[in-house]
């Protein structure tokens, strides 16, 4: 079904709406963020009027429903046919995650374990977006290879900041177009074109459950951002990091996680090495295998956040489901290669 949202100033915005989906959620899925608050038919914030089409209103507080024919609360309004819905806001007032296009200068290129680079970019000030690095921990930026139509997405490892600093940990893929360029040609001071921030990999801050964060290789970047967010806001939720790599040498330098532990005292860390060399005393196996061990020993079923390459994600998800973790408690972000 199609819903046409008509704004106060006459803009018509088309939104696909699935059967059983409320119009507010359908609009958000289409990138239109209308005012809303309780999302349960009580606050009246998402009041609107349906002017064409058939719909069904779920249970809502009588006083919250707007007066007049077709008065609905979008959080409770299910389309039964194509709909035309008038909303009491102007087009410009509807939040949109129109992805910003930015420019940034390479400010740092430093090795980050075997086969990876820590890349720091400095955003250029911009009339529309200002100078700040404004993103949600867990999000990524897309970078364009200078002079080519090649784009790669990389997750941020740092926190939003007013200095315009973006930090990434990027795996140097043998034969990779972008990472090959980074390793061979990129220099501090060069300009890059970016799009972002994007992505919905983020902490469920309202959840009361403990957290297990699983990082595979350079998938540690957004996981670090989430941990830094917890440290920044004094979030005391129990948290266990499982950090997996093929070889010990691929891990970030030890001081990174040592600093993390100092800032987040409740943090437990399990390093998992798949192909250890002589002298490795830690867990031997994949991150998914380490997760199975952690889940078997814990009392509460945690929320699981995982970032890594596709096969690792599949294995981790399998381990989580096998241990009885509900799908709604599983948050995954794929590392592009």
């Amino acid at each position, binding site marked *: 079904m199609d819903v046409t949202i008509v704004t106060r100033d006459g803009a018509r915005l088309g939104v696909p709406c699935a059967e059983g989906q409320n119009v507010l959620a359908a609009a958000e899925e289409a990138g239109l963020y209308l005012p809303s608050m*309780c999302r349960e038919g*009580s606050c*009246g914030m998402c009041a609107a009027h349906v002017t064409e089409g058939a719909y069904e209103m779920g249970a809502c*507080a009588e*006083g*919250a429903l707007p007066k007049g024919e077709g008065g609905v609360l979008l959080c409770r309004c299910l389309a039964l046919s194509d709909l035309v819905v008038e909303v009491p806001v102007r087009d*410009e007032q509807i939040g949109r995650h129109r992805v910003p296009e930015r420019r940034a200068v390479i400010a740092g290129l430093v090795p980050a374990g075997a086969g990876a680079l820590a890349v720091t970019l400095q955003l250029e000030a911009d009339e529309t977006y*200002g100078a*700040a690095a404004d993103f949600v921990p867990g999000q990524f930026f897309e970078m364009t290879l200078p002079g080519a139509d090649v784009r790669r997405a990389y997750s941020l490892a740092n926190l939003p900041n007013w200095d315009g600093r973006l930090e990434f940990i990027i795996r140097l893929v043998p034969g990779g177009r972008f990472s090959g360029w980074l390793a061979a040609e990129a220099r501090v001071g060069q300009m890059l074109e970016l799009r972002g921030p994007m992505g919905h990999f983020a902490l469920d801050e309202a959840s009361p459950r403990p957290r297990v964060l699983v990082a595979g290789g350079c998938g540690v970047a957004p996981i670090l951002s989430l941990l830094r967010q917890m440290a920044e806001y*004094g979030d005391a939720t129990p948290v266990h990091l499982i950090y997996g790599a093929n070889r010990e040498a691929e891990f970030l330098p030890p001081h990174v996680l040592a600093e993390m532990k100092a800032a987040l005292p409740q943090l437990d860390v399990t390093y998992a090495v798949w192909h250890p060399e002589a002298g490795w005393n830690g867990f031997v196996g994949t991150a998914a295998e380490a997760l199975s061990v952690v889940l078997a020993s814990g009392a509460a079923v945690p929320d699981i956040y995982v970032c890594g390459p596709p096969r690792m994600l599949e294995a981790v998800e399998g381990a989580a489901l096998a241990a009885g973790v509900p799908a709604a408690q599983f948050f995954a972000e794929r590392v592009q290669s």
Partner: protein
Amino acid sequence: MFCFQCEQTSRDGATAGCAGAKGVCGKDEVTADLQDLLIYELKGIGQYTHRLHKLGKPDADADRFSLYALFTTLTNVNFNRARFTDMIAEAATIRDRVAKAYEVEAAAAGKIPAMLGAAAHYQPAGDLSGLLAQAPVASVRAGVEKVGEDVIGLRSLILYGLKGVAAYAHHAEVLGEEREEIYAGVAKALDFLASDSTDIEALLGEALELGKLNYTVMETLDAANTGNFGTPTPTAVRTTPVAGKCILVSGHDFGDLRAILEATKDQGINVYTHGEVLPAHAYPKLHAYPHLVGNYGGAWQNQQIEFAAFPGPIVMTSNCLIEPQPSYRNRIFTMGPVGWPGLKHLTHNDLGILVQAAKATPGFATTAPEKQILIGFARDTVLGVAGTVVEAVKSGAVKHFFLIGGCDGAAPGRNYYTDFADNAPQDTVVLTLGCGKYRFNTHDFGTIGGLPRLLDVGQCNDTYSAIQIALALANAFNCGVNELPLTLVISWFEQKAAAVLLTLLALGVRNIRLGPSLPAFLTPNLINVLVEKFGIQPVTDAKADIQAALTRAA
């Protein structure tokens, strides 16, 4: 979770109240349960501090903590469960200290320490799941099956009124105005709540006592505001943007606003007021800052749209905060009692990051054509022209006064207040306060007898100022407030309004119109009491209510 403290509470179930995973305000059940436990602890602290006050040995830090902690539990103030976990631990430490002090001071006074009820001895669990398991004991509905809904309703009225009292008292305290009478009164009310009284008359009496206390609290806050910032004077306030970097200050706290104005002095940053900070412009010492350039936006419930469109950082100094949208989440900051997980909390000493944020965000690109509203008709201004006002009433030029005051909210029923103001006859004066006025304060009301027909008295706590105006008029006409040609039309939303209502009732003010809906915690029996004893009337239709008010007056 069970919470029914605000006007917008869910009324879907058999018992009105928010009882799901999340309240209408956005407060989740973990935070709600932790807030209940914190209040339970505060009752325990109150059991000791009440007795310490009586022994003449108060603990100032415990008293201040109680105000602050109660304030954090108001609607739309603090949603950060990590903060509540910390405060629960802090409260236990404070309780142990005042318990010890009480033992020592009672012995020193030759008294046997009283045996105190359960709240005084509560030991919070060491982790979140343990705390949540303890929460039922602290629920506002605990024991309802034994004591009945009326008792629960009256206890809730007292608790919510007390939260309002604490919020006002905290605003005064941070501006340096503290009174022993207030701290003793708050401790006494907490101790009373801890007693789990089931005596309806005693509960009603305590509610009115609290109303009287709140009168003193509002007077103290008035003294704090005027003492720090001067006497409000009629002031035209710009409501359109000026080109340049900018900061928006929302909430109610003028002390926080002053700190922000100081930190942004000569930095090329314009500061705008939002919501209930609007009255700041009328205070000479705040108005004197040249970079306090105007007021932006309307009442709190529009913030998701307005904050998203504001091109700079935003600071919430008190209620009403609602869930920050992703588009402005990184540039909204909290101060004082306010909190939301993942938002940066500022103190007066670390405002550098706010300045940095203002400089890193785009600011307003252009200056919009100037528009203004007129504010600042607090007691001194109105009483300064009391002679004119009295004359206008005697000559028949002014037939009636309507005080349309209180909170705004999202529910469509609040259009009543706009309709009321707009339909008030031309020979009537509309006094207003609180944030409900944003629905009509840009309308042209004209003038009457040389006075604007719409007089903006200030914030909701400036009810004190409005009461002074009413008392002075009553004095001039040699009658009681209830005999004045004055009707109070109150819109309530959160707990400060509950405190103000108790004050008006305690002062014997009758025939108040209250809406848009009556508090969910008041049972039909309790509403009957309010109707019979105080003539409280629910709002109906604006035109009909205006007519009824004018007919009653005539």
